[in-house]
């Protein structure tokens, strides 16, 4: 067995190619396609014979509706966003609010197709600061509930709210990161041993952020409609971003294989990667803040903002640690600060105005994957397509 080498070099790929004899290409293609042809035949046979009909007879269809979110655009109005994550179409027959049937309007058809979405509008006099429960009753009498924990008017995408959310993003994302970057002069003064300590500290911080993002992703995944497979999304998002960053990093390194692995340019690139990873994480954090505010789950008191700010200042330290020994231009530092901090603003906008657990799970997972890749980069150490294929095909087997 040859010693494992990663990534495989061009030379070793050539060796594999040379093994095949003349005419081997066609045979290999046939061997590769044979299982697919059999699979196709099986699917066709299954659809033709429909052997599961004996299991289905007499049972009501499995219904699976998810209320993704409820917005309160103005006093006296509720808007319910519904996703059908089940295997069969579902008809919303009636809507109950706080144990009372209520007149309502459905945007489009009352029957929501599989993986389809719908929006239901009610003129309901919701009470500010109090909880409300919305229950959808389907044509078979099944019920799907959602609680608005604290009713507050939902932010609308107006200039005012865009500005408020942008300001929020600047407070909790951009400013703390830039302040953290101000540790750069300090880090330049410390000894090499202490620098290694700060690099280790950086790894610790990043691992915490990665775990934090993963935890958040798992939490939101719990409310993702079954067909969209919350955990599958996490695996896809986290590994996807991990592998994408990994590919980017190794491709760049290959260009300069001959050179020393640890050049100032490499270290700067590493700092940029850290900034990017943190930026993706902060996008998820912004999403969480924006959506929590929009659905009334948190009142954004000063303490919470200060808490986030303190928390995020350490991110600046993480970015500058690798380049402490070098003298990167100021514009580089600012650019890294922007990459790490600005996505928070974007996140609060998305979270505040059009929160979706599916998008949130994916974004958080992407952030987690990116962060963990950066950890890998600092610590030094082709199955992404497979993940995409498994996720895509699993969409078909939800029941």
């Amino acid at each position: 067995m040859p010693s494992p080498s990663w990534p495989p070099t061009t030379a070793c790929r050539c060796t594999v190619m040379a093994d095949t004899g003349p005419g081997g290409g066609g045979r290999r293609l046939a061997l590769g396609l044979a299982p697919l042809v059999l699979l196709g035949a099986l699917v066709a046979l299954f659809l033709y014979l429909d052997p599961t009909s004996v299991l289905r007879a007499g049972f009501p269809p499995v219904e699976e509706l998810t209320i993704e979110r409820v917005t309160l655009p103005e006093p006296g109005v509720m808007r319910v966003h519904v996703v059908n994550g089940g295997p069969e179409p579902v008809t919303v027959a009636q809507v109950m609010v706080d144990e009372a049937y209520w007149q309502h309007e459905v945007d489009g058809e009352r029957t929501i197709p599989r993986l389809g979405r719908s929006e239901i509008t009610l003129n309901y006099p919701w009470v500010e600061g109090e909880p409300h429960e919305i229950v959808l009753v389907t044509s078979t009498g099944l019920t799907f509930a959602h609680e608005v924990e604290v009713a507050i008017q939902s932010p609308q995408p107006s200039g005012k709210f865009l500005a408020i959310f942008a300001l929020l993003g600047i407070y909790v994302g951009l400013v703390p990161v830039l302040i953290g970057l101000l540790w750069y002069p300090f880090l330049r003064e410390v000894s090499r041993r202490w620098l290694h300590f700060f690099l280790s500290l950086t790894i610790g911080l990043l691992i915490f952020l990665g775990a934090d993002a993963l935890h958040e992703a798992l939490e939101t995944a719990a409310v993702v409609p079954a067909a969209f497979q919350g955990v599958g999304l996490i695996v896809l998002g986290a590994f996807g971003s991990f592998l994408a960053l990994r590919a980017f990093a190794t491709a760049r390194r290959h260009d300069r294989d001959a050179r020393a692995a640890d050049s100032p340019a490499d270290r700067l690139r590493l700092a940029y990667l850290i900034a990017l990873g943190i930026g993706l994480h902060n996008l998820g954090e912004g999403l969480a803040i924006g959506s929590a505010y929009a659905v009334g789950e948190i009142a954004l008191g000063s303490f919470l903002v200060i808490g986030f700010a303190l928390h995020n200042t350490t991110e600046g330290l993480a970015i500058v640690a690798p380049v402490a020994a070098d003298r990167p231009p100021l514009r580089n530092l600012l650019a890294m600060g922007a990459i790490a901090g600005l996505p928070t603003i974007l996140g609060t906008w998305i979270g505040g105005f059009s929160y979706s657990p599916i998008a949130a799970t994916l974004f958080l997972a992407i952030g987690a994957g990116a962060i963990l890749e950066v950890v890998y980069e600092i610590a030094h150490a082709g199955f992404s397509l497979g993940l995409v294929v498994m996720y895509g095909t699993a969409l078909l087997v939800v029941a």
Partner: protein
Amino acid sequence: MSRRDWLKLGGAGVAGLSGASILALARRGGAAAALESAGVQDAVHSPQELAQLRMGVFGDHPPGDGFDPVAFLTDFDYGKVSRDSTGRTVREYEMVSVDREIEVAPGVWFPAWTYNGRVPGPTLRCTEGDLLRVDFSNAGSHPHTVHFHGTHPPRMDGVFPIVDPGERFTYEFEAKPFGLHPYHCHAIPLKRHIHKGLYGALIVDPPGGRSPAREMIMVMNGFDTNFDGENEIYAVNTAAFYYQTHPIRVGVGQPVRIYLVNMTEFDPINSLHLHAGMFRYYRTGTRLDQFDLTDTIMLCQGERGIIELELENPGLHMVHAHQSEFAELGWMSFLDAVPQLAADDGVPVHRYG
């Protein structure tokens, strides 16, 4: 303001809100039309006012299963009448238990167990002292019985024997005492057999009958559509909110009699509250001389009574459970008091003898 104007206003002012039910109300505004001709304007509600009542189900039905809640109000089954050797009246009824889906609110279907294909089952009616023969056959998928309240031999009580699917049993007993008695399936598990729809009313008239009145049956019931042990829908006579959008027409000042039975499962009590008027309440209907003058009554599971009233003023009189939750989940209705209502209009006048 003409009725057409009302309809227009109804269409424009409440478009898309609760348009369907308000229009239905306006269309059936018998009181409004009659009041117009009588020159009375301020006693009735405009569609705009009614639109403020946003509670209620989406859509307007009669149920898609063929059940007509208005017809059911006055559909009394007197059975096949004959006389025995002693000259006593004999009434023979046929009851069949059938599994079928019923529409309990617009678009919401419930897998019910029924007597004669509907919920509530037929309202059996007789006079005290009649001999009743109820031929029950079970065409359903589970064992059932018919257990009547009232006085009769335990053998005819509908607890034993359990009637298996495909089997039949004839209940034979003398109707007594006069009053209002529920009947329901007594096979176990009781809760499920009752809440799936196997219940109805037996009216035993006193010898000589009662005074003429516009008479109707109201069976308070509920449906646990998701089978979690709590009702999602409440109603009288099954169809949630139906008598809200289709008010029951009675005459101003004319006597009305409501036979009220509580067959609600899961909730220990149900209630009835009349707006803008009082009624005489005869508990169980077994005494003619004792009543309570009130506008709110409370009935436990299986309890029943007879309500007598005359509405003094024209217009819509709300009738609903005073448990607000039940009211807003479907047990909500209107009595529409119409001046000078002809005897053959609205709820028919019931005359004895």
